């Protein structure tokens, strides 16, 4: 099977790269192994939340200039332009966001902490500085929904000086769903709240319980495939209403995954769901073809390949007792040889293993045994040099390196 580019990985990185290439007219295949870490997404996208010293960042574009040379942002070119391109790519896929690369805003985490971020999905609560735009809010939650610790969130809001009332809400359909309490997850609630009629009744329930609050906050449990119903609810509620991130599985994450895949396929891309690349045929410094687990006997041949397989969670990197390795091609990986140095005893400290990843040259080509492979690029969390937890830089690195790789391929 012949393509211009084969992308390994169907998460935010792989789909961003796939969309950019397909949009430029390339024939692209994305090989996706199960669902990606988008299902853990917060509903906000980080570019750079903290600098190398751990201080909150106001202007990511400026602060990125101070990152050490080993950070992948140093290989993408014009950060500000690429960030704008990433936001436009999301919008074209139907993922509307607010925010900009030169000025972070704050987001509310599912446990009520306030953290700097780059973009937030439309309809989400965003905070400028450390004060809520409201004096009194009603924090509503679906009865029986456990992945939304209302007390923590209310405390976080109160620290910003707001008066918060927690209000439980429900509908007959939601009560019915509680017959299986363990299945009251955000994604299942979104399925129950999956039609217009029920959303209108939910709006009525919210309006009835709103009291004298100036604004309503609701867990992000609407719109698993598209955000039409989430927008409809916002319109029907008589006061300003914002969504707040929940503990995973993430509804907005599932929606982003669905919308990005749809966009990729609409551009003519081939999405190989539930498959994975297991081997490749290397001839010198060129990758000739790859084989997948499911397409036995059919090689995927392309001019270029992109490794967007993620970090340890996505299995783009694997560790055993002695080493850290890239499991598909055995590419060169940056990591500390001494096993005890991989982790810090204090779990809240920056963990050294978070920066492990595949080695790349300035154009993001990967390497094997010290030699650059000239048609294989890496993007996203599989890259070395980025601690996305410490820097709050995950989605930015995913999207910007993906776009940079697409540009390098199209050159």
């Amino acid at each position, binding site marked *: 099977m012949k393509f211009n580019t084969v992308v390994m990985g169907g998460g935010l990185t792989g789909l961003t790269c796939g969309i950019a290439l397909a949009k430029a007219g390339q024939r692209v295949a994305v090989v996706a192994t199960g*669902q990606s870490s988008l299902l853990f997404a917060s509903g906000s996208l980080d570019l750079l939340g903290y600098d190398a010293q751990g201080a909150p960042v106001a202007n990511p574009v400026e602060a990125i200039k101070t990152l050490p040379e080993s950070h992948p942002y140093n290989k993408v070119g014009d950060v500000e332009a690429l960030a704008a391109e990433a936001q436009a790519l999301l919008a074209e896929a139907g993922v509307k966001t607010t925010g900009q690369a030169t000025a972070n805003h704050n987001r509310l985490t599912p446990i009520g902490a306030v953290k700097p971020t780059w973009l937030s999905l439309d309809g989400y609560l965003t905070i400028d500085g450390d004060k809520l735009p409201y004096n009194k809010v009603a924090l509503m939650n679906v009865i029986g929904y456990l992945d939304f610790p209302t007390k923590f969130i209310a405390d976080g809001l109160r620290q910003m000086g707001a008066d918060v009332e927690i209000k439980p809400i429900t509908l007959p359909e939601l009560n019915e769903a509680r*017959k299986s309490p363990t299945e009251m997850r955000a994604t299942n609630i979104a399925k129950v709240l999956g039609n217009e009629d029920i959303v209108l009744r939910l709006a009525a329930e919210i309006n009835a319980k709103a009291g004298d609050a100036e604004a309503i906050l609701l867990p992000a449990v609407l719109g698993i495939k598209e955000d039409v119903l989430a927008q409809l609810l916002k319109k029907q509620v008589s006061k300003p209403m914002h969504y707040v991130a929940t503990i995973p599985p993430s509804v907005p994450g599932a929606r982003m995954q669905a919308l990005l895949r749809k966009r990729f396929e609409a551009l003519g891309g*081939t999405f190989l*769901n539930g498959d994975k690349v297991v081997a490749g045929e290397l001839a010198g410094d060129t990758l000739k073809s790859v084989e*997948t*687990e499911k397409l036995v006997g059919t090689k995927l041949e392309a001019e270029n390949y992109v490794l967007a397989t993620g970090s340890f969670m996505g299995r783009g990197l694997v560790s055993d007792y002695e080493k850290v390795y890239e499991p598909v091609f055995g590419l060169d990986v940056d990591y500390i040889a001494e096993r005890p140095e991989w982790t810090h005893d204090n779990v809240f400290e920056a963990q050294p293993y978070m920066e492990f990843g595949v080695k790349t040259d300035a154009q993001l080509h990967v390497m094997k045994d010290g030699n650059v492979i000239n048609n294989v690029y890496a993007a996203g969390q599989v890259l070395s040099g980025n601690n996305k937890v410490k820097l709050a830089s995950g989605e930015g690195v995913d999207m910007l390196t993906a776009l940079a790789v697409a540009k390098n391929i199209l050159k």
Partner: protein
Amino acid sequence: MADEMQLNNISENNFEQCLKCSICTAYCPVSGVSPLYPGPKQSGPDGERYRLKDPKFFNEALKMCLNCKRCEVACPNGVNVGDIIQKARMKYYTGKPKLRDMMLANTDFVGSMATIVAPIANFALGLGVSKAVMDTVMAIDKHRTFPSYAATKFESWFKKHAAAEQDKYSKHVSFFHGCYVNYNYPQLGKDLVKVMNACGYGVHLLDKEKCCGTALIANGLYGQAKKQGETNMESMRQAIAKGRTVVTTSSTCTFTMRDEYHHLLDMETGDVREHLTLATRFLFQLIDEGKLKLAFRDDYKKRVAYHTACHMERMGWVVYSTQLLKMIPGLDLVMLDSQCCGISGTYGFKKENYETSQKIGEPLFKAIAEANVEAVSTDCETCKWQIEMSTGVPVLNPISIIADALDVEKTIELNKNRIIVLRN
């Protein structure tokens, strides 16, 4: 030592790899529609921890699993959630299948009987009074339209009209037609013969073909499923020994024989697995390797939506059927979101499941209505019944579309020249 520990820690179905992330639940068609179902995570790896300690932790609610395997496709960590659930049902469920379940599961026996009296059977199955009786006595939902039975079985047609010509071809395949082609829709089998013959392949039936057993497994008749499975494997081995690939037109039959025989019924299939394939995959691979060319009619025009059947998704073979269809110049192919249609073989026919079945399929039916297409294409026959009944849009197997769009003369000509070119 350390390596050994890691290796020995791998359990059946990757059970120990579950991260408890609940992503499987997000993609389970039953969970969220049917609140009494505990969901794939609870029914699968979570429940398994307890069942390993004491079988009394088995719960009958596991019967609500459709065995669609979408949990396995979604799992980021390669846990065979669906297999864990099915295995638990096999191991711990002690109830006996009802008469209704045995009837629905025995597609072979019931099909043979019904085709003999097809006009009467079809007439009777369509009668309001029969439907009412089936609904109340048999608990087969009255809303269901039974797939009609053909007056002539595919096998009878083949023996009478096609078998004699097959030896004149220089290359050969065997065809596992399945119950659906044999008893309900012989036209698909005829289409397969037309396409294969045009490509220069003679088509042959297996020495003995039994129902693949997917409905038997779903209804708890494991012993019978295994017995039929052994017969099929033996027949396929004979065909493979003659150098023939065994082709099929049903994703579920293929999945059952390639994967479920081994995973669920503990059968040895290693020597057969790679010789058993969907006809679309067989054709695509020949074309991809430059061994075959297809020519299509200039006047063929159709807008078709492709529906991904669950087991097709699990096999990862959607790309074969869709890439093949995309070769037809006059075909405008729309990809539908991959989601379960709700029928899941015999599941949707049961009265107790009818409502759940239709609720699961609702988003798909809506998408089909909005796609503004002349037909839907899918590789699964039970999806066809469900979609046709629920949307009124005709459903065609990709092979039937190829057969319709194919320029037979030109295709024969193209491949003749190919052989000459290759010989030169």
